[in-house]
């Protein structure tokens, strides 16, 4: 089998890092070519890497040489814009790394195409009048822009990449369900593979400015509002800190106004010196914090990612995690992480308190987490599942094609999706062709 694997491949991209590992395993099972548009430094790979400067350079002729094309999608426009453009004209399998892709599409329509009408139209087509309303409000300065608020989860916009797909891969059951609401073809959840660098040197606690006896709590990754860091700060503020010296490090890029909010929360709780916002740090420094961490806090509310690379990383490091009981995190095994209601300050405080005073509990969780992660998030198993999924997709093609044909004809008749006849037809086709028992 000949596979064209579209991905961001820059060393700065988390998806790129993931792809590198997957492609290495996938190449053992099929002929894989990596397609990327990055101008900067890319990962190396045992598979051939085909670099293009623009989507139009990837011609139909080139793509027709492949049995299947796979596109990796994430919510970051610079890394995925070109991939989206190719996927529009050549249907393939979509791998959704993020649930919410609104930021990407808002950027695509408003910054790249500079077309407000297209953005509004897309929102209306996908989400009806509320969508149109939200789009209009975001563009006028009547209120906050929808992609800067929690409401963005109601307008994820991933449908814009799944509608042309012949199959979809997600990394959480949560996202799989969402996709199935609007996508009729095959969908599969495959656990995202992850590896961590255990080889390279880590910085010492001292080099990081931490005491050997400090209880280090860590939250890593892009500091977004939905990570509920303000709640963590508040919860720490309520802990009895007489027993140990607690340090909370927030490592990752942090936007100006959010940083201000965090600083204000720190001040309110008198936690200067306890809580440290270190911002974006080098890979090595990040690894070092994780390596020395005693507790990792990884909350999301609302959940906008498809799966959490940071959580997986933390588990691979063998750390106890406190996570919100939503989305991807809800699927982690009971005994390997501590799950709380991400909106409950009380539960957060209790969990932190419990773990802070219980080293055996922390050790147990850490071991369980690492065992689970090492078993679950593997590139080789990912690659095998991708191949199995490809077979499923090919099998689904005849019926998907048929549905497409019918949809196209109904469309030309101006029959809208909400007419009863569409549902009746869908049901009829399902019954008619869904059985598969041999008779004659």
């Amino acid at each position, binding site marked *: 089998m000949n596979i064209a694997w579209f991905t961001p491949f820059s060393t700065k991209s988390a998806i790129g890092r993931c792809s590198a590992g997957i492609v290495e395993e996938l190449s053992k099972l099929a002929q894989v070519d990596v397609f990327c548009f990055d101008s900067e430094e890319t990962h190396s790979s045992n598979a051939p890497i085909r670099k293009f400067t623009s989507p139009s350079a990837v011609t139909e002729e080139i793509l027709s040489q492949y049995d299947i094309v796979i596109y990796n999608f994430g919510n970051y426009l610079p890394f995925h814009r070109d991939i989206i453009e190719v996927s529009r004209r050549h249907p393939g399998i979509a791998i959704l790394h993020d649930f919410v892709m609104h930021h990407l599409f808002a950027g695509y329509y408003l910054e790249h195409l500079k077309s407000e009408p297209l953005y509004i139209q897309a929102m209306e087509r996908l989400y009806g009048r509320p969508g149109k309303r939200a789009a209009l409000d975001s563009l006028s300065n009547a209120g906050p822009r929808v992609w800067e608020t929690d409401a963005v989860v109601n307008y994820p916009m991933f449908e814009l990449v799944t509608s042309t797909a012949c199959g979809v891969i997600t990394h959480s059951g949560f996202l799989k369900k969402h996709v199935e609401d609007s996508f009729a073809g095959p969908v599969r959840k495959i656990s995202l593979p992850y590896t961590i660098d255990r080889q390279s040197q880590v910085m010492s606690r001292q080099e990081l400015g931490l005491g050997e006896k400090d209880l280090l709590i860590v939250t890593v990754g892009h500091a977004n509002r939905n990570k509920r860091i303000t709640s963590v700060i508040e919860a720490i503020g309520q802990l009895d800190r007489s027993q140990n010296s607690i340090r909370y490090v927030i490592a990752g890029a942090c936007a100006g106004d959010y940083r201000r909010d965090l600083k204000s929360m720190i001040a309110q709780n008198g936690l200067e010196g306890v809580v440290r916002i270190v911002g974006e740090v080098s890979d090595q420094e990040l690894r070092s914090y994780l390596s020395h961490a005693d507790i990792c806090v990884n909350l999301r509310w609302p959940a906008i990612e498809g799966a959490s690379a940071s959580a997986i990383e933390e588990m691979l490091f063998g750390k106890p995690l406190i996570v919100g009981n939503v989305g991807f995190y809800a699927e982690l095994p009971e005994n390997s992480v501590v799950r709380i209601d991400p909106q409950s300050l009380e539960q957060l405080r209790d969990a932190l308190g419990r773990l802070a005073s219980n080293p055996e509990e922390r050790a147990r969780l850490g071991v369980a987490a690492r065992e689970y992660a090492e078993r679950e998030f593997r590139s080789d198993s990912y690659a095998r599942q991708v191949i199995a999924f490809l077979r499923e997709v090919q099998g689904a093609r005849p019926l998907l094609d048929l549905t497409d044909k019918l949809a196209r004809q109904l469309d030309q*008749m101006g029959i809208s999706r909400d*007419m009863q006849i569409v549902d009746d037809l869908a049901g009829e086709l399902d019954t008619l062709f869904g059985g598969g028992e041999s008779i004659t």
Partner: protein
Amino acid sequence: MRIAVLNNCVPFLRGGAEHLADALTAKLQEYGHEAVLIRVPFRWDPPEKIIEHMLACRLLRLPNVERAIAIKFPAAYVPHPNKVLWLVHQFRQAYDFWGTEFQGLPDSVRGRQIRAAVIRADNHFFAEAKAIYTNSKVTGDRLRRFNGIDSEVLLPPLYDPVEVEQQECGDFILCLGRVNAAKRQHLVVKAMKHCKTEVKLIVAGRPESEADAVEIRNTIRKDNLAQSITFIDRFVSEKEKADLLRRCLAVAYIPYDEDSYGYVTLEGCLSKKAVITCIDSGGIDALVRHRETGFIVPPEPKVLADAMDSLYSDKPGAAAMGEAGFELARSLNINWDHVIETLTK
């Protein structure tokens, strides 16, 4: 060429379009083509069935066929790269019948959506045809008015040529064809009592229902016109028909609002007979010129009687009108050479 003729079919019902489809298929073969008639069942009740049958037609395929000739909605939707339409009917319920008692579709959201779908589909899928012809100016006008689609009129010829031997100018007016309310033979029968001359009437054709037959028989009895009116209430053979045409004074064909001129009219003209028709008969006027080749009068018994009387009183005049009608039909090039050549070019 290998040609498929496409028509609808409501099982066990045959009308003008069915005869045309049969005739066309047979003539194509006569002219040396391989031709097959493909009929697609059609149901319009409940209205959702309309959409389903439209869709079914879109999904059918015509393998091994070099040209498709479609004559009705929705059989005209079957895709083919080399398709021409010779449209006998659109789905009038969505067009000129909408807003009348013949609407057929419910005036609900659902009904309006279906109506819109038919119009949109006609617009879209008719455009796939290489050429569009209609069987009458009336059909063509409707197509232009409702769908903005241009077409050319291609008049349907008779299947069997009419033998124009020695024509007699007889004493009777002749009504031919299926007997039913829409064809209004009963009106001609009712007119007879107002006749002042000795003109007679022969109505020859199978009644569509017993009620149709009974109405005519009752009128004959009530008006005491058994001597003047002969009702042959059965299907008449080609031979019988030819004989009646040869001997009649003139032909009366007064259906209500028909699209096409009607075979009966054409048979009359080609038999060199004057034709009486009505102002609301529809496309008949393609073949009848008032006072030149016959009469086009209001559908009122007294007026019809006058027309019949004037023909009886002036047999030379009637014969002359017959000749004029014959010339008119000829000038309109209504023949299979023309039709086959047009549909296969």
